[in-house]
């Protein structure tokens, strides 16, 4: 259903996302994982056509038969909120503070052709569907009167309003209290049609997704079914990531990945991870290709 | 002549202009038909109210005298006293009794007839109701009597040359016995114009008086429009907002009106002596030598050229050339910085020059300061709000060393005779000369006043920077503009438009 081929994102001369390709089948839930600065959010935003000013995408991305990248804004904007929707990381600022919640939910429907009164009614239903108590009252509230978790549910209601084919969630629970995170994730898992779920949290991915893409330095370094990648990581970065997140019984952490993520544009040539990789050799100065069917990786010295 | 109170007025500012002259014209005004012509005249100071019996300032008589209020006599363009409401007057042999024969069929704008009773009433009010100190000019009047409806007799305590002259001023204005209830807002007079409308802060319109006893004015209305900013007034004339600038406040700008196809410039003289006053009552200017040094230190020609674009006349004492006893005294203190330094004896002084914030004063002060600095007198300029603050600080309290003001009143040499006056000039000889001039014959008067003027100059009681020019700019085709401004009013009676 969603096919991404050779997606590049650049800001001025700096390439932020390099040659990303993946697919999502109808009903499939795919996780996109990586540290901040890895290019995962930009990948998602380029699919939505919401890249910040001065940042451009090239390559191919299709949702069904419709192109998402390299087409005029007027065409993409009709897909947004209808065929594909997105829930953002920061619920506190994602809603218009001067507009009632119900109106903001209804807006996405009227925008795509539903009559106003019908949209109003359906907005309340949607609020109920995302498990908000007293949806009628919430519809009349302003965003500042809701908690973070409630606002994120409102965002989810907006995303679901027009029955999209694909839902993109960009760290939807990061900003929420731990107690609320679980409910939110359950809700997303329950209502999402097909899902592209972006996070840096391996545990969340594990509970949500069937397939996973690991990004680092603007590239997909490893991809495959969740179980394979998590139990038998091939790329040294994935390996490090998993090791860092795994707790020992005594609660002490294993060594994390050395160094830190370089700023955009400062990644080494060749394998982007080689300056932090304990296994790096001169061979790594050449860019490795993402190879392998099903469980693919881009590494000259993969783990077994 | 006793102490002549001054209407120091706004100096050149209010002075604006005055007097009559020219011949009535006729023509097609902007309004269309021959009887709806109107004219608008730009002036600088708006009156605070319309009651010149209790409010100082030149602005009120400027617009009301001769135009709305008339006296028994008036001053013509040549400085001659001519009949107005009095057809004629006879002076007794002892020069103490004046018998005025009044015009008949004169009516006030209220409809009341003008009779000798009104003369008795009006001159009586000067003593009883007027609040201005200039009313002392009529202290010489002993009694005013009605002989019959058209004859009034004024008896003086002693002969006075100043009496009839004072009668041409505000003091001689004739009021109706039934028209003094609201002088501040509703003037009632016998003149060719009546008050039309007053838009405070903007303009005063006078309308032609349909029942005027004399030659009816050529214009149906004249509007006096008030400007605080000289440039704004210039622009108004350039763009047709007004027809006449009654007194140019920015003489350098005259070039703008050089096109003879559009504008005309009238340049004449006034009674306004721009005086560099020195406080004779306190150091350092209580020292005659220091005062004389100042007079030598100032290059009057350069001052006039820079400060007032060379417009005006140089004078050397308190007498304008239009007075019969004028003598050229400009040679008394030639520009001579070396002499000035010598007179100062090598000493330097720091003094306060407190001036009114009027264009001519601010301009002149900067030249005076620069020139005095050359001889060692450092004058700090302090512009004060005119009129209130200047009057308070300098004029009333006398807290100043130097000041610059245009003394606009006609025949005002007498102010130097009063040592409480802000000059604090004190020379008994001078007072004696003035007193004998007022009582004596015409010849004696002239001789005495010439001598008095010389005395003032010799004593360096003040320095006379220049005689303020009467500078009028008008649209081409406006006639009846006064060449010289030597009376208190801007006479509208002769104004016309071609």
């Amino acid at each position, binding site marked *: 259903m969603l096919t991404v081929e050779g997606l590049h994102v650049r800001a001025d001369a700096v390439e932020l996302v390099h040659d990303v390709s993946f697919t999502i089948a109808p009903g499939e839930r795919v996780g996109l994982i990586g540290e901040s600065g890895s290019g995962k959010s930009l990948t998602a935003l380029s699919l939505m056509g919401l890249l910040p000013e001065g940042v451009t995408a090239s390559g191919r991305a299709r949702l069904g038969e419709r192109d998402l990248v390299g087409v005029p804004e007027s065409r993409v904007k009709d897909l947004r909120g209808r065929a594909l929707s997105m829930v953002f990381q920061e619920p506190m600022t*994602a809603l218009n503070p001067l507009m009632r919640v119900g109106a903001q939910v209804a807006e996405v429907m009227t925008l795509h052709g539903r009559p106003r009164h019908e949209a109003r009614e359906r907005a309340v239903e949607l609020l109920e569907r995302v498990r908000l108590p007293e949806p009628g009252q919430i519809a009349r509230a302003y965003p500042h009167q809701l908690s973070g978790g409630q606002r994120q549910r409102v965002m989810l209601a907006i995303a679901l309003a027009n029955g999209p084919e694909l839902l993109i969630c960009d760290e939807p629970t990061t900003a929420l209290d731990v107690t609320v995170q679980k409910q939110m994730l359950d809700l997303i898992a329950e209502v999402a049609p097909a899902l592209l779920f972006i996070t840096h949290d391996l545990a969340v991915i594990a509970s949500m997704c069937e397939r996973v893409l690991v990004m680092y330095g603007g590239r997909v370094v490893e991809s495959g079914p969740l179980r394979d990648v998590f139990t038998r990581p091939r790329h040294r970065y994935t390996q490090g990531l998993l090791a860092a997140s795994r707790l020992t019984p005594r609660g002490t952490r294993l060594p994390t990945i050395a160094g830190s993520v370089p700023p955009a544009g400062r990644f080494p040539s060749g394998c982007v991870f080689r300056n932090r990789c304990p296994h790096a050799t001169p061979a790594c100065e050449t860019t490795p290709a993402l190879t392998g069917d099903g469980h693919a990786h881009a590494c000259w010295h993969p783990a077994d | 002549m006793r102490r002549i109170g001054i209407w120091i007025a706004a100096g050149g500012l209010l002075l604006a202009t005055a007097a009559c002259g020219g011949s009535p014209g006729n023509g097609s005004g902007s309004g269309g038909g021959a009887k709806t012509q109107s004219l608008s005249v730009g002036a600088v100071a708006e009156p605070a109210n319309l009651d010149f019996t209790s409010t100082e300032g030149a602005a009120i008589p400027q617009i009301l005298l001769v135009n709305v209020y008339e006296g028994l006599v008036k001053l013509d363009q040549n400085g001659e006293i001519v009949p107005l409401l009095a057809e004629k007057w006879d002076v007794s042999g002892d020069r103490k009794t004046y018998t005025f024969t009044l015009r008949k069929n004169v009516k006030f704008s209220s409809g009341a007839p003008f009779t000798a009773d009104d003369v008795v009433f009006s001159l009586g009010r000067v003593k009883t109701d007027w609040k201005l100190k200039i009313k002392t000019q009529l202290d010489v009047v002993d009694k005013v009597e009605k002989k019959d409806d058209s004859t009034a007799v004024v008896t003086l305590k002693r002969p006075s040359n100043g009496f009839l002259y004072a009668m041409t001023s505000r003091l001689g204005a004739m009021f109706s016995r039934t028209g003094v209830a609201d002088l501040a807002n509703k003037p009632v007079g016998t003149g060719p114009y009546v008050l039309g409308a007053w838009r405070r802060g903007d303009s005063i319109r006078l309308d032609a008086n349909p029942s005027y006893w004399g030659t009816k004015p050529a214009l149906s209305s004249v509007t006096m429009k008030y400007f605080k900013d000289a440039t704004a007034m210039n622009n108004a004339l350039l763009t047709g907002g007004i027809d006449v600038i009654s007194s140019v406040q920015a003489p350098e700008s005259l070039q703008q009106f050089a096109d003879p196809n559009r504008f005309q410039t009238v340049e004449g003289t006034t009674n306004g002596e721009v005086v560099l006053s020195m406080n004779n009552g306190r150091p350092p200017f209580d020292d005659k030598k220091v005062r004389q040094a100042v007079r030598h230190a100032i290059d009057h020609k350069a001052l006039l050229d820079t400060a007032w674009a060379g417009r005006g006349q140089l004078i050397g004492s308190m007498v304008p050339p239009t007075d019969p006893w004028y003598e050229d005294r400009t040679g008394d203190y030639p520009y001579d910085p070396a002499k000035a330094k010598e007179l100062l004896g090598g000493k330097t002084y720091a003094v306060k020059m407190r001036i009114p914030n009027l264009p001519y004063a601010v301009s002149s002060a900067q030249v005076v300061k620069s020139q005095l600095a050359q001889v060692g007198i450092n004058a700090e300029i302090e512009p004060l709000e005119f009129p209130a603050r200047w009057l308070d600080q300098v004029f009333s309290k006398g807290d100043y060393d130097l000041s610059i003001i245009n003394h606009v009143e006609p025949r005002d040499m007498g102010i130097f005779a009063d040592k409480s006056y802000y000059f604090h000039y004190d020379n008994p000889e001078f007072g004696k000369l003035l007193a004998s001039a007022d009582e004596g014959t015409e010849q004696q008067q002239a001789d005495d006043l010439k001598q008095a003027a010389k005395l003032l100059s010799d004593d360096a009681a003040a320095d006379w920077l220049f005689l303020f020019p009467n500078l009028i700019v008008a649209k081409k085709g406006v006639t009846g503009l006064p060449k010289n401004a030597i009376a208190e009013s801007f006479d509208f009676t002769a104004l016309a438009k071609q």
Partner: protein
Amino acid sequence: MILYLVKRLAVLLASTVVAAVAVFAFMALLPGDPAEIALGVNATPEAVADLRHRFGTDRPPAVQFLDWFGGLVQGDFGTSYVTSAPIGPQISDRLGVTAVLVLGGMAVALVLAVPLGTFAAVHHRDPLGAAISAASQVGIAVPAFLAGILLVFVFAVQAQVLPSGGYVPIADDPGEWLRGLLLPWLSLGLVQGAVLTRYVRSAVLDVMREDYLRTARAKGRGRTGALWRHGLRNASVPVVTVLGLQLATLLIGAVVVERVFVIPGLGDLLLNGVAGRDLLLVQGVVMVLVAAVLLINFVVDVTYHLLDPRLR
């Protein structure tokens, strides 16, 4: 909201009273006895004392204040010492003129600033946007009276298409009224418009960076649509604050423009009053100006609260 309104109203009233005390006290410091000034330099002491009694300036200051303030509450500003005319009608006449001048200037500023500022923000990376930004920067640097003088020079003196000054009441001739006000409006509005353009631009730029604008686009709105529907109202919140500040500035800026264009407004009345030491008049005008600024602040605060539900 009601509670807020009541509280804010109480503050307004209290500030006005305190301001009245301040104005009165300040005026009491002015040198020059009104009675002496009214009578001129040659007045007799008896006449001065008499007039002082008539003016009531021989009473204790507190009594004078209460009398004056009591009158104010009833719209009576007293009678001028100098012109012996009632002050209230003068002030209300002039206030009308100044209000027209200021509101017109504000309208010009808004008409210029909102589209230009928004355009400059949306196109802040383009040369045209940068040019507008630079032009507004230059516009701020020009003193209002200089702008006025230049406008007169160009449109009145050279082109002779508009009057150089003066004010014609609308009742006399609506056409002339309008023609006479165009240049004053422009000279007030151009400079204030430049200031406002910068605020609008920065407010819109801020809003454009907001997450909810991205949300709106995620819903399917275009850039412009999102900005229009969700951005401008949000951007208007800071702009309204500035607008209030600017109205106050304009009210005072009008003093200068009134001088340039010979418009009989409040500023002109104030300067006249100061020059003529018309104490009561100055007191009245200052009070009205200060009260107007306080009132504008009040309106801005309330508008702010109406615009932003978070404050309710």
